[in-house]
């Protein structure tokens, strides 16, 4: 059943019985609603129209308006492939109903909005700061907060638990409190896990995040569009090119730019290479947690080979910033595709070796089978996307569901798990890597000829020979550097299938050279908030194993 906005418009206006305003912005369907109608409308959308996924919640600040904040929800219906953006206005002193009774995944997103904007939610189970530290005064994403005003703290929060986990937020005196991280080998980053153990069993578990909150969204508001691309690199730094692609795709769609076939093909190759090395490092570090260090040495050699491929394109290894709005930053050196095919062969051999080492390994199976389970319903409710969702048996991959860059013309499969446990997540990742290699081979063998970027002088810098060689090139270069790219006024949400799931960018433009607001929809954020729920009553050793298999990347989680 294809998504039909007119049916929804009729039904929703009847059922909700309030003034709803339906508009379209750059191909997205937008509904503006009065904030009192939030819960009945969301419930109706979820139950009657299949909008099972609550993808993102964010605020936008308009300091000069009577009702200061826009509050924006993004929903997705997998059955009809419909996407909906819902907007409402909230005044500075007003509260808005919490969405947590309808979607459990709303919890952290609302805490983030509270932290960043100071919007208050009625009925939220645990409305406290999430990203900034506890001595932080003010709400940094408000327009009147200066981007570079730092606030110092000397305190570390003691172990605490959510109110939903019991009346006492401190650890029980009769049980063993345990604190893992934020500097701990098993967390692979700056995650902090706080637990309460009865023997080896986890009674309560909570997580604290924000230790790598680098203010990506505020930085985006103070930089030109092309200057933001290096910042996107550092979101999910295990697979940096994918973030570049996601961001540029959003801006390009807003500007109505269709990039040349070669740029599309290159973006696919880079994305899939990144997916492979991201999954490799996920499996490798997960195995380190399980005590199998050898795997890590094997996979890292393959990562190095892919780094070499990136280096040949742009000179950087990890944080590549390879795309530009309008195409790629550079053309491929000759013979790059051939070398890429050789690299793919090497990686495939490595994956086969991994397969032999792990898939039927008794110890590995005992540590992973049935561990860290999450059912499909729960996963959807928390807003899972990507391999972790597919391991639970939900067939959702944006490369198939809403193909972009010609993914629909490529031959590949989407692996689906059944149990949603650690072993399934491993199997899904292994197969995804093989499918990605298949994609890379198909694209590299038929790399389109032609230009690697568009040549619109208002979007793309002229080539160096023109800048040095003629006055027109020099002028164009000067104007673009000074004035920057200026997308039209409006807003857009666009997403790509990144290594951890749906990576979305919600961009609000006021026609200026900098975004008015840029919100990232980080896949890890939704996944990680389910972690305390998943680990309730499990062994503490399984906590470590499960954390590794979720592939939480702090850069993306905290932004």
């Amino acid at each position, binding site marked *: 059943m294809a998504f039909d906005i007119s049916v929804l418009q009729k039904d929703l206006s009847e059922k909700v019985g309030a003034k709803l305003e339906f508009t379209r912005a750059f191909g997205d369907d937008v509904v503006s609603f009065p904030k009192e109608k939030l819960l009945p409308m969301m419930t109706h959308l979820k139950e009657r129209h299949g909008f099972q996924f609550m993808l993102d919640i964010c605020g936008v600040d308009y300091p000069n308006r009577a009702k200061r904040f826009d509050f924006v929800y993004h929903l997705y219906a997998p059955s009809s492939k419909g996407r909906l953006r819902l907007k409402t206005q909230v005044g500075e002193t007003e509260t808005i109903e919490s969405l947590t009774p309808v979607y459990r995944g709303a919890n952290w997103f609302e805490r983030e909005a509270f932290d960043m904007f100071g919007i208050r939610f009625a009925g939220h189970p645990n409305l406290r700061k999430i*990203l*900034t*530290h506890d001595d*932080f005064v003010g709400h*940094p994403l408000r327009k009147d*907060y*200066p*981007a*570079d*005003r*730092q*606030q*110092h*703290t*000397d*305190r*570390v929060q003691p172990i605490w638990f959510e109110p939903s986990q019991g009346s006492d937020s401190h650890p029980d005196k009769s049980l063993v409190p345990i604190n893992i991280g*934020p*500097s*701990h*080998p098993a967390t*692979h*980053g*700056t995650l902090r896990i706080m637990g309460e153990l009865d023997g080896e069993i986890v009674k309560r578990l909570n997580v604290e995040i*924000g*230790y*790598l*909150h*680098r*203010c990506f969204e*505020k*930085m985006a508001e103070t930089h030109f569009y092309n200057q933001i691309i*290096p*910042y996107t*690199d*550092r979101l999910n*730094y*295990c697979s940096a090119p994918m973030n570049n692609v996601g961001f540029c795709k959003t801006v390009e769609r807003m500007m109505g730019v269709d990039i040349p076939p070669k740029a599309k093909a290159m973006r696919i190759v880079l994305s899939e290479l990144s997916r492979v090395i991201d999954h490799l*490092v996920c499996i490798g570090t997960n195995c380190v947690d399980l005590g199998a260090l050898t795997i*890590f*040495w094997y996979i*890292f*050699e393959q*990562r*190095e080979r892919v*780094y070499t491929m990136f280096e040949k394109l742009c000179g950087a*290894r*990890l*944080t590549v910033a390879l795309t530009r709005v309008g195409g790629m930053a550079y053309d491929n050196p000759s013979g790059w595709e051939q070398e890429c095919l050789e690299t793919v062969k090497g990686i495939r051999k490595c994956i086969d070796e991994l397969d032999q080492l792990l898939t039927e390994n008794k110890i590995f199976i005992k540590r992973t089978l049935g561990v860290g389970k999450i059912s499909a319903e729960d996963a959807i409710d928390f807003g899972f996307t990507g391999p972790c969702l597919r391991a639970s048996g939900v067939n959702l991959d944006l490369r198939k569901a809403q193909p972009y860059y010609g993914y629909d013309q490529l031959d590949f499969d989407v692996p689906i798990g059944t149990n949603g446990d650690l072993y399934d997540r491993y199997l899904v990742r292994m197969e995804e890597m093989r499918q990605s290699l298949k994609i890379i081979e198909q694209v590299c063998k038929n790399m389109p000829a032609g230009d690697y970027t568009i040549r619109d002088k208002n979007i793309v810098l002229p080539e160096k020979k023109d800048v040095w060689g003629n006055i027109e090139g020099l002028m164009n270069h000067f104007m673009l550097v000074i004035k920057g790219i200026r997308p039209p006024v409006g807003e857009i949400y666009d997403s790509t299938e990144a290594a951890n799931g749906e990576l979305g960018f919600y961009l609000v433009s006021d026609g200026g050279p900098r975004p008015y607001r840029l919100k990232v929809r980080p896949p890890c954020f939704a996944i990680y908030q389910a972690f305390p729920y998943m680990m309730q009553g499990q062994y503490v050793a399984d906590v470590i194993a499960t954390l590794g298999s979720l592939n939480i990347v*702090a*850069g993306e989680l905290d932004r």
Partner: protein
Amino acid sequence: MSQQTASPVEIQMNGPDIQQMLDTSVLTTRADKFIAWGRKNSLWPLPFGTACCGIEFMSVVGPRYDVARFGAEVVRFSPRQSDFLLVAGTITEKMGPILKLIYEQMLEPKWVLAMGACASSGGFYRAYHVMQGADKIIPVDVYVPGCPPTPEAVIDGIMKIQELIASGRRRPVQR
């Protein structure tokens, strides 16, 4: 043993071949130099990897760059066991007190390497939640530029630390 037998040391000191022994099997040095030589070749790093630089540090430890060649592959996350703090990645204000605590928990003598632009100066995050360099709260011996630095640069930084240990110099800026 009877009273008449001299101690082994005395025998050697009195023996005729003392010069030959000194030439073939004895090295003389100063105690502090000897200790420094040992220290510099068995650094036990604590990788305080917070962000992208942490991933590049994996490459430094990994098979291609292999930091074991410099005696610094025994990565320990316990501050009590390590003498070399490698700050790899952005330090946010929230992380600050933890970094400081970990530095204070490490036993003397200890050395600190700031890997990458963020750990050195905050990098391009001139932002409300990012500490503008790890040296705002802990002393730093060697700064490695780059975002992230290449593994070669990190190894160069480690060699600089080794030089510092061997020379016995204290860090340039004491805070």
